[in-house]
């Protein structure tokens, strides 16, 4: 199980692999830390300190000090259900977090990514959806390299881009090196108030070649969904049929940066809002690319916004290396089309495989 040839041994893995997320789910993300290699990633030592502090009772001051920069209100809330946890440490950590936030004493990167806020608050807000609602099963997350840039290319579906957020939690919580996925989002995201603010703080940025390349060159894991609005806004009848992959710009960006492409297939997102119609008039009126009509929306009003509780699987496939090509390859349209097709085929193939294995949409 530990050695990972994901696609070829898929059938064996999926049966053996089902226990893994279950085991992890029981302990939340803190269980993931001890498994992690002691890579010099900034987030890890703190997380390890948390888990060590819980398992082997350390001196309270020392532990509180170590926990300090990593704790938060969201975790304190989560911890209330856990009896016998170190209360003082949690409170001290929460207060230290609060102190940094209200005095503005934290860092954001050039893209507006607020790592602390994402780790402590935003992820805790999405995690219940990830663990309890959609019960996401993650496979092959180790296909994302432990260090250096990588471009994760995924299918896009579900009317609202929840699949991107779930993919982000999947990488954040399950990757052994604690990598952070930096998603590329449509310009619509950055035009909407509140949404744009949260998206930037969660590390998302505009889907354009400049930003993608800058992030890849800095050695970040970048997530992109090249189907864009064509994929997310497709009718329910076309579910799991990959749309055209844009103009393949993601391939040339990865080639320029020399980073591997990790194909990713997401099953379950297609059924959360079954889109049976598209009101083009309303969409044009509101300036949206599509206006979904589902069995519940807009008929039930806000209640129609509740997604169906489908069971999700996110599978990261084997990375496709791009560093073997000469520098001028990024300008070669034939190679672009071939690589784009290769990535697309691999995602589509894995989608079909996962669909065959799926017992039911909801379980």
């Amino acid at each position, binding site marked *: 199980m530990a050695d990972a040839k994901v696609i070829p041994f898929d059938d064996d893995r999926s049966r053996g692999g089902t226990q893994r997320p279950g085991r992890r789910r029981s302990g939340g993300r803190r269980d993931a830390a001890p498994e992690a290699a002691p890579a010099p990633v900034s987030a890890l030592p703190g997380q390890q300190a948390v888990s060590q502090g819980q398992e082997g009772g350390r001196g309270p001051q020392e532990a509180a000090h170590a926990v300090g920069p990593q704790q938060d209100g969201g975790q304190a809330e989560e911890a209330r259900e856990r009896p016998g946890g170190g209360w003082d440490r949690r409170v001290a950590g929460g207060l230290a977090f*609060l*102190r940094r936030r209200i005095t503005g004493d934290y860092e*954001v990167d050039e893209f507006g990514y607020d790592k602390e806020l994402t780790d402590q608050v935003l992820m805790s807000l999405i995690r219940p959806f990830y663990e309890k609602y959609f019960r996401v099963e993650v496979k092959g997350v180790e296909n994302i390299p432990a260090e250096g840039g990588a471009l994760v290319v995924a299918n896009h579906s579900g009317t609202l881009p929840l699949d991107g957020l779930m993919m982000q939690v999947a990488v954040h919580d399950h990757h052994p090196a604690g990598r952070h996925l930096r998603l590329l989002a449509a310009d619509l995201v950055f035009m*909407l108030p509140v949404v*744009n603010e949260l998206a930037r703080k969660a590390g998302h940025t505009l889907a354009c070649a400049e930003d993608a390349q800058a992030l890849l060159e800095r050695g970040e894991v970048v997530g992109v969904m090249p189907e864009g609005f064509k994929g997310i806004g497709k009718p329910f009848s076309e579910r799991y049929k990959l749309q055209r992959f844009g103009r393949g710009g993601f391939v040339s960006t990865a080639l320029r940066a020399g980073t591997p492409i990790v194909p990713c297939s997401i099953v379950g997102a297609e059924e959360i809002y079954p889109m049976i119609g598209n009101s083009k008039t309303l969409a044009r009126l509101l300036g949206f690319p599509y206006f979904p009509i589902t069995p519940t929306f807009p008929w039930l009003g806000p209640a129609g916004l509740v997604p169906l509780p489908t069971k999700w699987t996110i599978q990261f496939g084997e990375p496709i290396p791009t560093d073997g090509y000469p520098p001028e390859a990024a300008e070669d349209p034939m190679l672009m089309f071939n690589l784009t097709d290769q990535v697309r085929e691999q995602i589509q193939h894995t989608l079909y495989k996962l669909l065959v294995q799926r017992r039911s949409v909801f379980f």
Partner: protein
Amino acid sequence: MIGVDAVPPGHHLGGADFVRADIRQPAIARVLAEHAVDTVVHMDVTGTPLGAGGRTAVKETNVIGTMQLLGACQKSPSVRRLVVKSSTSVYGSAPRDPAVFTETTPPKSLPSGGFAKDAVEVEGYVRGFARRRPDVAVCVLRFANILGPGADSPLAEYFSLPVLPTVFGYDPRLQFVHEDDVIDVLRIAAHEPRRGTLNSGTFNVAGEGVLLLSQCSRRLGRPTVPVLLPAVRWVGSALRSVGVSDFSPEQIRLLTHGRVVSTEQMRQTLGFEPKYTTAGAFADFARSRGPGLLPPDALARAVDGVAALPFRPFAQAAAPATSTLSTPGAE
């Protein structure tokens, strides 16, 4: 070394002579010829109105002044080097823009008016001049928002308000450059390039790092009032028409979408390392403005006071309190 301005300087100029001339008049050509000037540093591209006259006078100084000055430089055979102070506002700021602008990024939506449009036009004239006089080394410095104890830009005025109106649902990324660094980089640009560097071309100048507007307000200790974007635009134009403030639509766009530039070229090619980071420049500015209504020190002391309370009896009550409190702090 000579300094030229339309008004006499308020302080001693060191070793420099002062010549009173208006760059909107052709007299500037005579100044260049009389003193056999070899290096021209054009600083008069500014967003702040000089006394009365308002926006029209500023635009005239910026654009007509630059045209006159460039015309004079073109006629003067002695000029070898031209340095122009521009601004990163030439990139505009729009949601469709990439997160980080490099010197070659074309703006998605050109600034429609105000100082930013002046800067775009000035740069256009400077490019034309560089084509006509290839023997002159031309350096265009695009400064991020200049802050420091002596800054009097519209943004510094904004940060001096007791309560900062912000645009609801947007938290722009801002970059600052300290006024001392501005002087240093102008000095580098006006002299012969050091070994291994090149000081002609276009360079973004900004301190390292980024601050969000929410961070700025917390570090200043000034509370924010989120206002819906249409209301902000309406109030802004109302204030402008009354003449109370020159808070241009460009400023509103900056405070909505923010702007971050890449300083790679400044470090690699120009060979300039700013002494102040963005956060450092802002801290220096905050010190000069005095504490706001919610000074961060006092808030930090309050939190420390809570943390110093004995834990056991406190823990049950405090845990819900922290989790609710951290949300407004996190926004």
